[in-house]
């Protein structure tokens, strides 16, 4: 059994493009999923029963489904539902955003809730307006609690982008497996794939640790 590790070097451009796509997917998804998460959290915290329950249903639904299934489902259902042809990339983004928004909604809701009452009352008692209290007291503190969780969600998202390979989106996993199929260099390509994810993911994991240490809340 001979191994030819040069295939990795030969195909480095494609692999790097795949890695770039992975990063791109992560960034764009997060950019969309954060506002969506905030909206969902506010809906949940609102006094309107309808909004609150709608948000709850959405969040519970997408948090209790495997992402790979959501991806497949989106791939088949979205074109039919909207009567438009979606590219695989759009579908992938849609599925990822739906999934991550649900987690973010919980993160934002828990973060805001963990501060709300006592701090808000104390701020109001000092004479601040509701708006001032929210922006100067509640949100800054909530942000400290939310940031570490968001960082962890980011890393999960980064890894989950690999799943969109099943609908042929050209991120790192798909690219590596395509090259494997073309060159029949299974061990080399799969190891390269793992190594590339490791190179990108390990520093991110350490960064998340740092964020948790820095912003971890000690009551």
């Amino acid at each position, binding site marked *: *059994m001979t191994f030819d590790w040069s295939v990795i070097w030969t195909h480095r451009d494609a692999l790097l493009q795949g890695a770039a796509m992975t990063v791109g997917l992560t960034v764009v998804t997060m950019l969309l999923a954060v506002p969506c998460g905030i909206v969902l959290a506010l809906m949940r915290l609102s006094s309107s029963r309808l909004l609150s329950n709608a948000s709850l249903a959405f969040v*519970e*639904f997408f*948090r*209790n*489904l*495997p*992402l*790979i*299934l*959501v991806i*497949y*489902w989106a791939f*088949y*259902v979205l074109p*039919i539902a909207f009567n438009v042809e979606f590219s695989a990339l759009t579908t992938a983004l849609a599925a990822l955003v739906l999934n991550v928004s649900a987690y973010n909604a919980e993160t934002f809701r828990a973060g805001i809730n963990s501060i709300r009452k006592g701090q808000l009352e104390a701020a109001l008692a000092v004479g601040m307006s509701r708006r001032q209290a929210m922006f100067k007291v509640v949100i800054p503190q909530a942000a400290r609690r939310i940031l570490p969780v968001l960082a962890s969600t980011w*890393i999960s998202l980064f*890894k*989950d*982008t*690999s*799943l969109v*390979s*099943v609908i042929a989106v050209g991120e790192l*996993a798909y690219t590596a*497996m395509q090259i494997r199929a073309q060159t029949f260099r*299974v*061990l080399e390509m*799969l*190891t390269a*794939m*793992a190594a590339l*994810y*490791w190179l*990108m*993911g*390990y520093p*991110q*994991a*350490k960064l998340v640790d740092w964020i948790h240490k820095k912003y971890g809340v000690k009551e």
Partner: protein
Amino acid sequence: MDIDFSPLIENWRFFAGGLGVTVALSVISALTSLLAGLAIALGRLYGPGWLRPVLVFYIDTMRAIPVLVVLVWIYFAFPLLAGVTFPPFWAALVALTLHIAAYAAEVMRAGIESIRPGQTRAALALGMSRAQILRKVILPQATIRMLPAFGSVLTMAIKDTAIATVIAVPELMHRAETVAGQSYRPVEVYTAVMVAYFCVLFPVTRGVDRLYQRLAHLGRS
């Protein structure tokens, strides 16, 4: 748009079999992950000095690499190195355990470290040995505190089994793909399977929440 759920009804046995594999794979990997996680956490907390960085490296690596990547590597690449092949189910089990055990280890380490040092002191003052303290004072309390996280491990395992479809493990997701492909009714099939997964996952998270609420006071020192 016409809706036709007949492929689901005709093939219900096929799906039921898939669900069985999903449940089996999830439960077994959850158990192996928890056991491995406990061993790793204890190794990290109480083991020899050289072991610690090794375990930390392993844990951090699993945080960086997607489970899909571990899965295909174990199934396709490992046999080329070691000369042994895994049947898909076992490859999936190994891969899932490798991946989830890292998370479980972190959870358990946090759980054990969250027990007040006063508890250890009180047990030492009675004359207990370190091993006794771990078994009788620390772990029982830590286990209760970690119940929600154990639930997470189980839900993680259930969701990750769906990824095993890429190496043709005959679990529910794979069955869905097969029927959807053959019947040309992907919308109905995937929607129904979505509901099925939800019906499995939702009670698990809710059940764990309930159980924890009942028992939480036993873990509060």
